[in-house]
């Protein structure tokens, strides 16, 4: 019973902590674009804060889903990449909305990054014309620890490292294999391809559909 109580307390504390961050807001922008604004200050999260300055490209994927009446389902999203330049110690940030790249900028501190993040108005989808219906939307934010290109680069490097090691064992000389694929190499590739981006952490909120929108 005591253990259950501890677990419940921890879960409650986590939920409270998430709730303290605040909730994003949905707005209807120009050209019937659904915007996500007032993004919560997630960079104070210890796990994210430590990762942000690792030098890897942190990718934030924002997804908005809604199930309105009439079985109409709407889904949209945006993406933000943040890369801390270890040499210059600045943040290179780029935001991609539903229409493509929005803005790309260089920020010199974490405070500037937080301010930029909070001020973002991310277009996530074009709202179609139709009957005005009220409802709630589900907003999800996934924090991915590295980019797709970094993932591919590491996969390639890992495979080549293993192959170089095997070649070295066979011939005593270390050089990459060219064109030969043995069972061992296939297995190494299978292992290497298990390098996959998985969320460092995820947030989800529900937000009321903005007034006056006509999905």
């Amino acid at each position: 019973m005591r253990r259950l109580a501890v677990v419940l307390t921890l879960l409650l504390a986590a939920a409270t902590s998430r709730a303290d961050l605040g909730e994003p807001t949905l707005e209807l922008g120009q050209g019937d674009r659904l915007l996500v604004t007032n993004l919560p200050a997630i960079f104070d999260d210890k796990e994210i804060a430590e990762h942000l300055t690792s030098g890897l490209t942190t990718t934030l994927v924002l997804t908005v889903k809604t199930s309105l009446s009439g079985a109409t389902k709407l889904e949209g999203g945006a993406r933000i990449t943040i890369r801390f330049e270890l040499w210059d110690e600045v943040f290179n940030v780029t935001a991609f909305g539903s229409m493509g790249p929005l803005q790309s900028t260089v920020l010199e501190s974490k405070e500037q990054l937080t301010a930029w993040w909070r001020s973002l108005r991310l277009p996530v989808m074009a709202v179609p014309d139709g009957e005005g219906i009220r409802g709630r939307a589900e907003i999800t934010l996934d924090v991915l620890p590295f980019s797709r290109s970094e993932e591919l680069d590491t996969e390639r490097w890992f495979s080549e490292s293993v192959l170089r090691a095997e070649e070295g064992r066979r011939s005593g000389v270390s050089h990459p294999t060219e064109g030969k694929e043995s069972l061992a190499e296939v297995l190494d590739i299978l292992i290497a391809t298990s390098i996959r981006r998985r969320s460092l952490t995820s947030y989800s909120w529900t937000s009321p559909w903005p007034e006056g929108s006509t999905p």
Partner: protein
Amino acid sequence: MKFREPILVLLLMVVGATTLFTFFHRQLAGASLAFGTQPEVLQALSASLEDQRQLARLDPAGETTYRQRFDELETTLHRLQILEQSREELTRRYELLLLGLTGLSVLLVAGGYVLLQARQQARLNRVDTAITALAEGRTDLKVGIQGRDTAGRIAAMIERTSKAMALDRQRLAALRNLSAWQEASRRQAHEMRTPLTGLQLELDRLDELLIQLGANRNVRDRLDSARQELARLADFTTGFAGFARLPEPKKRDHDLVALVAEFIDTYREAWPEVDLRYPSSEPISAQVDRDLIRQVLVNLCDNAAQAGAQSITVETTKDTSNVVVEVADDGGGVDATVATRLFEPYATTRDLGQGMGLGLAISKKVLLDHGGDIELVATSSAGTIFRLTLPRTSDTQKEATS
């Protein structure tokens, strides 16, 4: 019970494979990853990055070089960080692959084992069938199993045993047949000898009476003719008696090569028109009755010479257990009408009065009494080959004799 052994073996294989899997997993799985993603390694790389930056500040002239090194170190650091992030998934994939390969290996080995067992079972079934056939008395069995394993060796033994049984049966049948003929000959000789003796005495008395009465020459010539026919009949009766009373062989250890050589040297004088040869070879011993074997050789060479042979070759060789004497001639060959019953008494193509056809029957009896045999190997218009087989004296027998 039938599946108990395979199941036990499979269970052992699975246990073995699992142990190997656990061992290699503990020893190797993730070890290289753990090494690459050690916190110390990552910290050292981070410190190196900072060093490059500091160096660039202190030595602005070399900034390009320091920046280049910095970028290289940064790339490595990032790769290791990503590996660290994916470590759990990498290890899981590695485990899955290892487990899959282990399972596949076990399946392959199990499949191979089951196939081998099935093959072995099929072989044992054939051996079982062959043993049953052998027990039922069937001869000349062909089991049809090759190989040096137990089943193969047993199959070879069954085939050898069935061959030996077939040979023994043939010999026994031949001996029985010859014994029957001997008994018939003995009775005929006995029945004929008494009246022949009486008839000869009567003819002698008649000759004396004709002399006393002064009979003319013509009458006495006819009487002489009758006496000659009677003598020929007596010779036949003696032949019958000789065949009926063939002696038991008095076997002693003899060198067959020397025996053949001695016989041929003697026989050359009796048949000077025949070219007799014997290829020389190492001495080969056998337990034989010297006189009886000589009689056999005389019979064969007489037959060859009478069949018009110009050349006779007697070659003595040996195999694993026998002495083999082959008598080859270039005569006219054996007539096809008697070839199948060549060793039966009275099997002859000669004209009446030219021989009784007992020679080869006597030879057969002599060889069988020695535990050997005689057979017609080949015959054609180009010649004939007879093969005599006699059991060799083993080293043990030689030592016992000496």
